[in-house]
C-alpha cells in the first residue's frame, strides 16, 4: 500500500467526516465519533492506518497544546491566581489518592513495586483532551464540575513534569548505559546541567514566556495586524504557540503547560478574540486527529490474547479513578450531581500516559507486554469514559435532582454588554464617546490595532478583530446584545456584516452607518430601517453656515436644515421602493444613480425656495389685513 501523506490525510479526513456526524446524529459526543473513526480506519478493521498511528498520535498531541493555549486565553491572570487553592487542593488530592490506590492494586496483583509505581503514575493522569472537549461541547465549562475538572487537569499537567523526571530513578539499568536511543527521544538541553541550574532554566523559561507575552507577542501582533494581511495573523498565532512549545520541550517542561501560560499572558490583550477565532479550527482539527490516532492505536491483538486480563485492569482502573474522584468531590463539597459528573468525566487515563509508558519501557522499567497492555487499557479508558458519561447523564443524573447551572466567578469574556459597536474610526469613536458619556459602555470591535491599543489606554473596552466574522462577534457576546451599531467605513464589509447578522440574529436591533443613499437602498431591501448616511447632516450644516455668513438668520436656517434632512430621508425611502430591483450590473447602477440624483434635484426644485415657512411672518398678516380693509 502506498502510504503517501495525501492518502493518509484522505483516510483521516474521510473517517472524521463520516463518523462524527453519525455520532452526533445518535446523540453521542464528537469525541466518541473520532475515536470510533480511528478504530475503523485502524490496523485491525479496515487497515488503512498501520504502525504510523503512533507518529500521528505524537503529532496530534499538538492539538492538546493548542487547546491549553486557548483555555489560557479565556483565563485572566487574576482569575488564575484565584484558582490556585483549587488547583493545588483538588489536583493534589486526586493525584495522590489515585496513585496510592492503584499502587496498592498493582502491588497486590504481584507486580514489582517499580512497575506498580510507574503504572500508578500513568493511571493518576486524566485526559485533558477528552475532558475539556466534552466540557466545551456540552457548555459545562462554567459549572463547578467544569472548574474542578480544569483545576485537576492543570495540576496533572504540572505534576507530569516531576513524574518524567522521577522515572529514570526507578530504572533498573544504569542511566549512562541507556544509550543514544533514549537520549534522542527525550533529549532536553538541560540533562547535563546540575540540578540547580536546571531549576533556574525552568524558572527563566517560564518568566520569559510571561515577559515575551507582554513585550514581544503583543507588539509583534500589532505590527502584523498593520499589514492587514489576514493569514499573517494566523501564521503569527501558530508561531507563538509553536515557539512556546519548543522552548518548553527544550527545558523539559510540558508544552501544554507552557502554552497555557502563554494564553493567560495574552488573555488581557486586545488580540484575545482574534487569536481565539484564528486558532480554534486548527485546534479542533488536531484534536480530532488526536482522538482518531488514539482509536487507531488500540492493539486488538493484545486484547485477543488476554481479554480477561485487559478487561479486568480496564474495569479496575476506571473504578479506582472514579472512587478517588468521587471522594475528592465530596471533600471539596461538590453537589451530588456535579460530583457524579466529575467522577465519570475524569475517570480515564490521559494522553500523558502514552508518553510516560513508552518512556518507562525505554528505561526498562516496564516489559513490552506490560507496556502494550497498559497502552491498550489507556486507549480503552478513553473510549469508555464518554460512553459512561452518556450512561451517567441518561440513567443516573435524572435521579439525583436538578442539574446545577451556577456560574463560576472565573468568567472568560470580561463583560457582556448590551450594545456592540463595530468599527471605531472617526465615525464609530464619536458614537462610542457619546454613548459612554451616558454611561453606556459598548463592546467595541475594530480592525486597526494601533487604534485599539490607543483606545484601550484611554480606558475604552476595544477588541481587535475582523467583525465580519461571526465567531468573533459571538465571542464578543452578540447573542446577548440588544443593539448592534455598524460604523464600518467599507460598504462591502457593512453589507457582509449586515447580511450575516440579519440571518443569524434576526431580532437584534441594527443601527447602520452608510456612505450614501445607494448603500442605504441595499439595506432597506434587507429590511433594515435604522440607516444613517454619514454625510447628510454634516453637509447640510456646512451649507447652513455658509448661508448664515451670507446674512441668513440662523434660526431660520436651523429649521430649514431640519426640514431639508427630513424631506430628504422621506424622498430616499420613497425612491428606494420605486427603483428597479433587478438591475444589479454596474452599468445599470451608474445610470440609476444619475437618475436618482436627477429626481432628487427635481423634487428640490418643486419645493422651491423656502416659501412654505410663513410662521411668525407679520408682513403676511399685514397684507391680509390690508386686503380685508380694501374690501370693506
Amino acid at each position, binding site marked *: 500500500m502506498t502510504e503517501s501523506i495525501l492518502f493518509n490525510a484522505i483516510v483521516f479526513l474521510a473517517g472524521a467526516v463520516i463518523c462524527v456526524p453519525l455520532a452526533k446524529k445518535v446523540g453521542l459526543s464528537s469525541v466518541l465519533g473520532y475515536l470510533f473513526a480511528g478504530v475503523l480506519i485502524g490496523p485491525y478493521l479496515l487497515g488503512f492506518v498501520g504502525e504510523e498511528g503512533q507518529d500521528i498520535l505524537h503529532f496530534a498531541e499538538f492539538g492538546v497544546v493548542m487547546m491549553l493555549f486557548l483555555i489560557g486565553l479565556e483565563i485572566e491572570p487574576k482569575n488564575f491566581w484565584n484558582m490556585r487553592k483549587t488547583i493545588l487542593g483538588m489536583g493534589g488530592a486526586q493525584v495522590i489518592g489515585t496513585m496510592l490506590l492503584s499502587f496498592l492494586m498493582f502491588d497486590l496483583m504481584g507486580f514489582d513495586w517499580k512497575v506498580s509505581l510507574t503504572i500508578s503514575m500513568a493511571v493518576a493522569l486524566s485526559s485533558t483532551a477528552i475532558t475539556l472537549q466534552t466540557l466545551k461541547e456540552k457548555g459545562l465549562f462554567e459549572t463547578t464540575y467544569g472548574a474542578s475538572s480544569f483545576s485537576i487537569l492543570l495540576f496533572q499537567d504540572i505534576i507530569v513534569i516531576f513524574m518524567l523526571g522521577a522515572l529514570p530513578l526507578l530504572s533498573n539499568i544504569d542511566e549512562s548505559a541507556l544509550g543514544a536511543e533514549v537520549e534522542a527521544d527525550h533529549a532536553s538541553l538541560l540533562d547535563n546541567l546540575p540540578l540547580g541550574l536546571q531549576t533556574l532554566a525552568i524558572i527563566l523559561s517560564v518568566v520569559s514566556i510571561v515577559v515575551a507575552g507582554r513585550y514581544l507577542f503583543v507588539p509583534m501582533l500589532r505590527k502584523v495586524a498593520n499589514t492587514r494581511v489576514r493569514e499573517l495573523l494566523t501564521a503569527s498565532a501558530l508561531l507563538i504557540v509553536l515557539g512556546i512549545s519548543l522552548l518548553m520541550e527544550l527545558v523539559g517542561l510540558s508544552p501544554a503547560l507552557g502554552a497555557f501560560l502563554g494564553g493567560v499572558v495574552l488573555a488581557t490583550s486586545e488580540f484575545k478574540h482574534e487569536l481565539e477565532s484564528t486558532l480554534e479550527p486548527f485546534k479542533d482539527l488536531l484534536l480530532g486527529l488526536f482522538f482518531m490516532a488514539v482509536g487507531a492505536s488500540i492493539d486488538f491483538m493484545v486484547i485477543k490474547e488476554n481479554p480477561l486480563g485487559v478487561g479486568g485492569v480496564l474495569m479496575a482502573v476506571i473504578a479506582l479513578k472514579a472512587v478517588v474522584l468521587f471522594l475528592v468531590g465530596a471533600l471539596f463539597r461538590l453537589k451530588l450531581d456535579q460530583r457524579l459528573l466529575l467522577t465519570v468525566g475524569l475517570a480515564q487515563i490521559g494522553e500523558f500516559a502514552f508518553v510516560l509508558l513508552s518512556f518507562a519501557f525505554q528505561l526498562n522499567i516496564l516489559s513490552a507486554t506490560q507496556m502494550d497492555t497498559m497502552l491498550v487499557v489507556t486507549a480503552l479508558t478513553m473510549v469508555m469514559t464518554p460512553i459512561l458519561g452518556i450512561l451517567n447523564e441518561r440513567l443516573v443524573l435524572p435521579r439525583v435532582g436538578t442539574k446545577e447551572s451556577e456560574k463560576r466567578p472565573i468568567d472568560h469574556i470580561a463583560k457582556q454588554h448590551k450594545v456592540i459597536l463595530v468599527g471605531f474610526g472617526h465615525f464609530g469613536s464619536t458614537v462610542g464617546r457619546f454613548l459612554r458619556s451616558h454611561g453606556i459602555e459598548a463592546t467595541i470591535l475594530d480592525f486597526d490595532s494601533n487604534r485599539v491599543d490607543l483606545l484601550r489606554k484611554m480606558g475604552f473596552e476595544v477588541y481587535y478583530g475582523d467583525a465580519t466574522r461571526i465567531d468573533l462577534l459571538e465571542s464578543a457576546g452578540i447573542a446577548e446584545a440588544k443593539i448592534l451599531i455598524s460604523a464600518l467605513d467599507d460598504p462591502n464589509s457593512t453589507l457582509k456584516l449586515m447580511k450575516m447578522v440579519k440571518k443569524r440574529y434576526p431580532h437584534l436591533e441594527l443601527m447602520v452607518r452608510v456612505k450614501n443613499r445607494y448603500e442605504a437602498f441595499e439595506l432597506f431591501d434587507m429590511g433594515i430601517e435604522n440607516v444613517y448616511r454619514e454625510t447628510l447632516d454634516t453637509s447640510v450644516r456646512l451649507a447652513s453656515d455658509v448661508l448664515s455668513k451670507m446674512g441668513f438668520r440662523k434660526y431660520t436656517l436651523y429649521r430649514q436644515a431640519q426640514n431639508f434632512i427630513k424631506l430628504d430621508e422621506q424622498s430616499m425611502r420613497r425612491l428606494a421602493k420605486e427603483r428597479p430591483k433587478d438591475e444589479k450590473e454596474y452599468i445599470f447602477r451608474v445610470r440609476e444613480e444619475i437618475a436618482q440624483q436627477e429626481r432628487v434635484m427635481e423634487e428640490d426644485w418643486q419645493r422651491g425656495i423656502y416659501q412654505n415657512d410663513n410662521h411668525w411672518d*407679520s*408682513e403676511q398678516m399685514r397684507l391680509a389685513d390690508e386686503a380685508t380693509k380694501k374690501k370693506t
Partner: protein
Amino acid sequence: MNSILILFAHPKFEQSRTNKALVRRIESVEGLTFHDLYERYPDFHIDISYEKELLAGHDIVIWHHPMYWYSCPPLLKQWIDLVLEYGWAYGPKGTALKAKKCLNVITTGGTRALYCAEGRNHYSVNEFLRPFEQTARLCGMEYLPPFAVMGTHELTDAELERETCKYEKTIRLLQQGGSSSDLKACDLLNDVPDLN
C-alpha cells in the same frame, strides 16, 4: 450711566419690518449690549453661564420681543426657565439680579385700542405682561412699565420712524437713570412726558 442689556427674541426677525427698524436704531448705541437670542441659540441650546455673566455686567435688562399669543416667543421663555436659576436669581441666596431694573419692549399687531376691557383682547398689555413683572419682582429687580409699539400692521413709515425715535430716546433716558417713580407713573414708557 446705566448699562443696558437688550435680550432680543424674534424667530423671524428678517421679515419683521417694525423690529428691523427698531433694532437698527438702537443696536449701536454706546453702553448698550444688543443680544440676539435666536441668532445666538438657533438650536435653543442656551449657554447659561455666559448669560449669567452678561446679566451680572449690566444694570438694566430689557426683554425685547414681539407679542405672540399674548406672550413672548418660546426661546425667551426658555431663556427665563434656564438662566434665572434658583439660588442665583431667586431663592435665599439668589441675589445676583437684586436692584437691577427690568422691562419689556414689545411689538403688537393689534392697536392699543384693542388692548383694553372694551377691545377684542380684553386686557391691557400691562396685564398680559404680569408674568414678566412677577418674574422680575421675584428676582428682586425693579420692573418698569413696558415700551410698546402697537398696531404694527397699520403703521405708516412716518409713524414707524416716530416710534423708533422714541425707542432711542427711551433707551437714553434709562441710561441717564431718571427717577423710577416718574417712569412708573405711566402705563407705557411711550407716554413718559420727557419723550414727547
